[in-house]
């Protein structure tokens, strides 16, 4: 019964989220475009699938994965686990324990990105549009590696307390340099993959990690230093996706060259 009640409230909050979108879509369709929607029945059923799907998805996350994930983030960043002495001013840094924090940041960034529904959507579309040249898994893994590196580096930033914008501005410069050398068709998709990675699954877990770290490390203010992980997670996939495109182009190039070489013999 309790399960049913909380599912109902998840369904209601999803409905509130979907409603403005439905109003915009159908309002423009009916009053501006004034056309009948093709396959209206199929689309309405599809919207119900989206609605119930998201509600189940969020409810399941809330029930199982989020509490445990947040608890783990808290335990891994607790001063006792990190080996930060409360009385000695906390200047002694036990790097071995921080290694677990970075590893956790990397692993949680990677695994939540793989499960992110909006990334699945973009990967499906990119695969369709490119005629299969961009593999759904290739793109998703490239993005997930980017998020993983981003969050691990973001955790390192919270530990060291360096200003966020130094990292982000350096990242921008790198993105621009990479853009010069990247195969042009992939550029827009790579920029997009920065924004799609961080939604339903990643944000709550990563926020818990950031707040936990900023709470435990002396001299960090959770309100100021706890933020910024999401920014890392939306910057690094841009680089990793362009890197993925560059590497696959290079491999294709080399294969073509060696193929031509054997052809001449």
């Amino acid at each position, binding site marked *: 019964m309790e399960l049913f009640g909380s599912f109902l409230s998840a369904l209601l909050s999803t409905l*509130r*989220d979907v409603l*403005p*979108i439905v*109003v*915009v*879509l159908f309002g423009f369709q009916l009053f*501006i475009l004034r*056309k009948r929607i*093709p396959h209206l029945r*199929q*689309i309405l059923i*599809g*919207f119900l*699938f*989206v609605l119930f*799907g*998201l*509600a*189940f*998805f969020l*409810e*399941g996350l809330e029930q*199982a*994965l989020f509490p*445990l994930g947040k*608890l*783990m983030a808290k335990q*891994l960043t607790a001063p006792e*686990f990190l080996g930060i002495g409360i009385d000695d001013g906390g200047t002694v840094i036990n790097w071995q324990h921080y290694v677990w924090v970075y590893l*956790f940041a990397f692993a949680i960034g990677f*695994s939540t990105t793989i*499960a992110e*529904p909006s990334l699945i*959507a*973009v990967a*499906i*579309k990119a695969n369709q*549009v*490119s005629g299969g040249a961009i593999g759904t898994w290739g793109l998703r893994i490239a993005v997930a590696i980017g998020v993983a590196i981003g969050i691990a580096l973001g955790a390192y930033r919270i530990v060291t307390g360096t200003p966020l*914008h130094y990292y982000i501005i350096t990242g*921008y410069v790198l*993105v*621009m340099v990479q*853009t010069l050398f990247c195969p*042009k068709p992939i*550029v*827009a*998709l790579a920029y997009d993959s*920065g*924004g799609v*990675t961080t*939604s339903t699954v990643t*944000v709550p877990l990563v926020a818990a990690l950031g707040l936990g770290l900023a709470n435990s490390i002396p001299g960090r203010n959770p*309100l100021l*230093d706890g*933020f910024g992980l*999401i*920014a890392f997670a*939306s910057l690094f996939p841009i680089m990793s996706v362009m890197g993925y495109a560059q590497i696959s182009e290079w491999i294709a190039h080399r294969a073509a060259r060696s193929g031509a070489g054997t052809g001449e013999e």
Partner: protein
Amino acid sequence: MDRVSKSLQHLFRSSMESIRDLLPILLVIAFFQLLVLRQPIPDLLGLLTGTLLVVIGLTLFVHGLKTALFPIGENMAHDFARKGSLFWLLLFAFSLGFGTTVAEPALIAVSEEAAEVAARGGMIDPDEEAMSSYANGLRLTVAISVGLAIVVGVIRIIKGWPIQYLIILGYLGVVIMTAFAPPEIIGIAYDSGGVTTSTITVPLVTALGVGLATSIRGRNPLTDGFGLIAFASLTPMIFVMAYGMIL
């Protein structure tokens, strides 16, 4: 009979895909909980039922994505392209960006946190009323910035401008604003770029871009169709810092 078994097979296959998508999270949790923290998993049954719900949800969502969100987004893009009225297309683009962002739960959470930061930093009065008006103003600001981002992105698709020039401009905007914005707001501003694009916005906006690029002659759906999300995650950073500076 044959159709039923076929759709059951399809359902089974997509559930297996959802399980595969979730497997990494379960492995990470199990590894850290059992081997690093060395604690048993509390409430194993709850974890398993929750995971089952997530699998069902993901399967349904991906099905709805393919049968509703993608087709309606692309259809409307085609119809707008055929109608040929730039005004209505841009108004639609703005409404889609604004409407999907303003009710976004992640944004509501972030703007409340931002109000708390502002109150502690002494930028606004630390009472409930000032904080809620600050949070609401911030939410509107972000929603407007996402609406404008989609408008700019749609104009770019129509004109066929290379995306990197606009993104460089955006990055420059962020860097310049960072130099002037109050330091308390920077972290939140940078994060706000990532949280605005929700699970329903992304497929719809992607379908809109790809649909437009497909309908307009001379545009390539891959090169020109993507990129709307990139703008939508860049402009909030600039607007949130501007909001922090003005107030």
